C-alpha cells in the first residue's frame, strides 16, 4: 500500500538528478572542470557553508536549548519566528538582511561607523546570508532532540553537583549529539545550495562572493552545459562529504 507512493516519491526526487547525469557533457567535462573559476567557486562554497554551519552551531544550539528547556512567556511566538527563514523566499531574506546589516541598515550603519565593518559584497556577508537561511534547520533538529531527550539524566547530573553549564556540556549535549549532527548536516547542505539570500545580500563577485549556486545561475544564462557541469560538481562533493560523515558517525558509540 505504501510502497507505490514511496517509489513514486523516490522517482520524483531522483529523476531530475538522473536528468542532469544523462545530459551532462561528458566529453568536455575534464576541460570544464579544470577551469579556475570552477575550483574557485567550489572552494568558496565549501568554506562559506562550513563556516556558516559552525556559526549556526555556536548560536543555534544554545537557541534550541532555550526553546526546549527554558519556560518563558512568548516562547511559542519565538519558536515560530525562528522558522521564518524557512518560509521566507530567500531573496526577501537577502533584502531583509540588507535592511538590517547593509551599509544603511539599522545595525550595518553602526557597524560601519564604529568598526569600519561592511558585510555586503564580502565573503563574511555570504556566511551571514547562508547562516540566516540554514540555521533554522539546525535549531529545529536540535530542539526536537532536546525535547525527546530524557531529562532525568540531567537531574541525575545535578544531584552529582554539576552546574547547569556542566550538565549541558557533559550530559545533555552528548546525549543529543545525533540530533545535532543531523541538524548540522541539513544546515550545511542548505547553506551549500543557498542562492537567493546570498546573491541579494552579498552580491556576486568571483573569488569573494560567487559561490557554486551563483556560478550555476550565471552559467545558465549563456552556457547551460557549463551549468550542468557545475551542478554535478556540487552534487558529487555533497555526496562524498555526507557519505563520509555518515560513516564517521554511525560507527561512533
Amino acid at each position, binding site marked *: 500500500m505504501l510502497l507505490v507512493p514511496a517509489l513514486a516519491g523516490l522517482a520524483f526526487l531522483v529523476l531530475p538528478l538522473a536528468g542532469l547525469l544523462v545530459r551532462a557533457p561528458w566529453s568536455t567535462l575534464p576541460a570544464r572542470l579544470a577551469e579556475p573559476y570552477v575550483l574557485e567557486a567550489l572552494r568558496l562554497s565549501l568554506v562559506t557553508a562550513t563556516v556558516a554551519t559552525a556559526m549556526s552551531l555556536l548560536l543555534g544550539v544554545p537557541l534550541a536549548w532555550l526553546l526546549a528547556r527554558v519556560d518563558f512567556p512568548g516562547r511559542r511566538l519565538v519558536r515560530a519566528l525562528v522558522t521564518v527563514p524557512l518560509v521566507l523566499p530567500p531573496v526577501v531574506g537577502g533584502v531583509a538582511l540588507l535592511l538590517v546589516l547593509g551599509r544603511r541598515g539599522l545595525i550595518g550603519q553602526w557597524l560601519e561607523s564604529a568598526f569600519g565593518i561592511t558585510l555586503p559584497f564580502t565573503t563574511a556577508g555570504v556566511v551571514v546570508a547562508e547562516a540566516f537561511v540554514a540555521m533554522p534547520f539546525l535549531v529545529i533538529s536540535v530542539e526536537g532532540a532536546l525535547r525527546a531527550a530524557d531529562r*532525568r539524566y540531567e537531574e541525575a547530573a545535578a*544531584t552529582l*553537583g554539576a552546574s547547569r553549564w556542566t550538565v549541558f556540556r557533559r550530559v545533555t549535549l552528548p546525549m543529543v*549529539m545525533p540530533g545535532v549532527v543531523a541538524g548540522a548536516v541539513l544546515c550545511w547542505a542548505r547553506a551549500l545550495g543557498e542562492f537567493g539570500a546570498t546573491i541579494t545580500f552579498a552580491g556576486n563577485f568571483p573569488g569573494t562572493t560567487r559561490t557554486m549556486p551563483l556560478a550555476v545561475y550565471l552559467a545558465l544564462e549563456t552556457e547551460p552545459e557549463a551549468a550542468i557541469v557545475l551542478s554535478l560538481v556540487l552534487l558529487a562533493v555533497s555526496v562524498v562529504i555526507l557519505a563520509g560523515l555518515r560513516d564517521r558517525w554511525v560507527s561512533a558509540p
Partner: protein
Amino acid sequence: MTLHARLVVTRPAFTLDIALDVRAGEVVALLGPNGAGKTTALRALAGLVALSKGEIVLDGHPLHTLAPEQRPIGMVFQNYLLFPHLSALDNVAFGPRCQGASKAEARRTAAALLERVGLADRAAARPRQLSGGQAQRVALARALAVRPELLLLDEPLAALDAHTRLEVRSELRRHLADFGGATVLVTHDPLDAMVLADRLVVIENGAIVQQGAPAEVARHPRTDYVARLVGLNLYRGVADGTRVKAGELLLHTSEHLDGAAFVAFPPAAVALYRSRPDGSPRNLWQARIDGIERHGDNVRVHLEGPVTAFADITPAAVADLDLTPGQTIWASVKATETHAYPA
C-alpha cells in the same frame, strides 16, 4: 549529619506534608502505595522538586535554599540513570569531577569505589553492557563518590529480577551500614524496607500514617495498607477488657484493653469448617467465600461476612473441605492467636 525536614509540596490534586528526622548512620525507608508521595518527598530532599512550604536542615544548615547541585547529597535513581555515553568508571568519576577534582584524581576515587562494590573489572564497560545488578552497584558507587552527607535511594531494587534482587539487597544493606551519613530510601516493597531500613515511615495520600522500627510496624499495623504489606488481618474497633467489637463481630483477645483498639491476626490462624464446629471456639463467624488463590505453598481464601478476612490453609485442606467460591462456611480464630493494641 542529622536530617530534620518538613516537606510540604502542594499540587493541584495532591498535597504532601510530612516531617522527617533521620539520625547520622540511620536508614529510613519511606514506604507507601503508588502515588502516596514518597518519590516526591525524596525529590524534594534532593531539590528536584520545589518545596511549597517547610524546611530541610542538615546538621543545622538549611538545605532547602540550595540548588540540587549545591546540596551535599548522593542519589540513586529508580532506573539508575547511568549516563549512557560514559563508561562505568567515568559515570562514578562524574561527581568528583564536578566537585573540582582533577581527571586523574576523580578516576582514582571512582576506581576505588568500583572496587568496593566489586566491579573493578567492569570499569570500562558502558552502562548498556552492564547487567541490572551491576548497573545498580555502579549507581550506588556514583552516588557515594561525591561523599554525600545525605544519601537518597529511589526504589533501588525495583528494576531487578527476583534472584538478583536477593543478592543485591544484602549487598546494599552492607554498604548502607558502612555509610556514615543519613539515608532515606523509597520503596513499595515491604521486604526491602524491612531488610534495609532501621526505621520505616509509611506514607499514604501525602501524609505519614505510621512509623517505627520494622519489627514494631510489622507487629502493629495501623492501616489496611500496612496490614496487607505485612500479611495480617487487621480490624479497628472498641475494646472492653478482652473483647473488641469490630464491626458486627465481637472478637475475644488475650490482651486487656479499653477504648479504641486494633486487633490483628495472621491469615494462617484462621480455621475453616464446612459446618458449625463442636466445642464452639469463642471467635466464630459465618462467612462466604469470595475467592481462592495460591499463596506461596498454601491457599489463600478470601472471606466476606461480618468482617473481611483472609485465611491461609493447605491445599489438602481445600480438597478435604471441597471449597468453592460463593459457598458459605464457618471461620474461627483462637483468642491466643490474636493481638490487640490501642488505636
